[in-house]
């Protein structure tokens, strides 16, 4: 995440838009920017983990069986007009006229992921609910990000499987998020994409099953989808396949709202 922050700090006008996907070498907790470090001891086991503090807000994320994405957009890059991805009049994203949670980049990226998940048969949708607390409410939100809700979070049934957060500065915008593939033994109350709890929502039609199998075949490997709830690690094949899928989904969503010529690094 330090790389994300450095990329944001050093973003230059007309500089590149950067998309990164990464995993963590060991289970690590990332805290939202204003969360208190001592709060991580409230959940058994979390206090002993290495931890970092994000430059973005929101709740704590246990980076174990998940994929993290980050997107850095320089300050002067402009968003496309709503609903038109064919290069018509561009508008400045900095004081994006959209209010509250409906910032274009959040919604475009998340909707692209939702479409792709639905195409694979999962009953994914945007949350369209909120647990956000303004100062006058004075009620604490859950410590863990995946127990909080904002309208553009991606859920399957009652389970949040992807959330994102932004930091907006004079140099540009950083948006990053986490796709929960499976829960961790330390956070059994959460359920990821491959947990059985997210399976009942799937439309297991012949077509969707073929689509899923075809997806794995197209990626050059066939991996069995293990939807057990024992918190076991996804296999290497599963992780690599989903990384490729996520990159494709994110690029599609970003290209809805930004002009980008993608290059692979």
């Amino acid at each position, binding site marked *: 995440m330090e790389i994300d922050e450095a990329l944001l700090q050093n973003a230059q006008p007309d500089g590149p838009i950067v998309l990164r996907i990464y995993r963590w070498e060991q289970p690590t907790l990332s805290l939202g*920017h*204003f969360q208190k470090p001592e709060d991580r001891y409230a959940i058994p086991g979390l206090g002993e983990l290495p931890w970092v503090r994000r*430059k*973005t*807000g929101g709740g704590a994320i246990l980076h174990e069986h998940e994929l993290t994405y980050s997107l850095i957009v320089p300050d002067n890059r402009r968003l496309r007009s709503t609903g038109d991805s064919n290069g018509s009049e561009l508008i*400045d994203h*900095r*004081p*994006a006229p959209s*209010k*509250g*949670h409906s*910032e274009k980049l*959040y919604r475009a990226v998340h909707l692209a992921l939702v479409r792709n998940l639905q195409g694979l048969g999962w009953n994914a949708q945007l949350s369209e609910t*909120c647990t*956000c*607390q*303004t*100062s*006058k409410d004075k009620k604490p939100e859950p410590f863990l990000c995946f127990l909080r809700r*904002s309208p553009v979070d991606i859920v399957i049934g009652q389970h949040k499987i992807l959330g994102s*957060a*932004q*930091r*907006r*500065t*004079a140099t540009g915008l950083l948006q990053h998020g986490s796709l929960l593939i499976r829960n961790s033994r330390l956070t059994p109350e959460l359920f990821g994409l491959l947990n059985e709890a997210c399976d009942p929502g799937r439309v297991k039609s012949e077509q969707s099953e073929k689509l899923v199998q075809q997806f794995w075949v197209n990626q050059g490997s066939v991996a069995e989808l293990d939807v057990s709830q024992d918190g076991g690690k996804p296999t290497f094949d599963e992780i690599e396949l989903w990384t490729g899928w996520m990159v494709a989904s994110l690029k599609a969503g970003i290209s809805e709202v930004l002009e980008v010529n993608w290059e692979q690094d």
Partner: protein
Amino acid sequence: MSITPEQLRYCDSHEWAYVDASVPDVAIVGISAFAVEELTDLVFMALPKIGQNVSAGSEFGEVESVKAVSPMYSPVSGTVTEIHSALVDKLESLSVDPYNEGWIMKVKMSDPSELEKLLDWNAYKKQCENR
């Protein structure tokens, strides 16, 4: 005393500075109504500390809205002499009156001429309209 937006000088990042003629070396700093409207529901504000040195154009604090964290940039250089601590527990007052109830900090300026480099109300308003 009641501050009006027309009296203020602005950064293009939406912070404002006001100097009362009776205290000419101190700037009162806040964020504009435009910025507050952009940020929408605020959940937290991190203020500077009294005695902290600030530089024009550099971060002096941060504000968190429901989906983004944004730094606040100081319009002037100098030393923070007062902070509006109570504001953190009533961020909603920024939506009502960001220019009086919503003041954030007071800075004893090291170089008052920096105010001249800031946008006046008309220039700031035009910038916002062109966005």
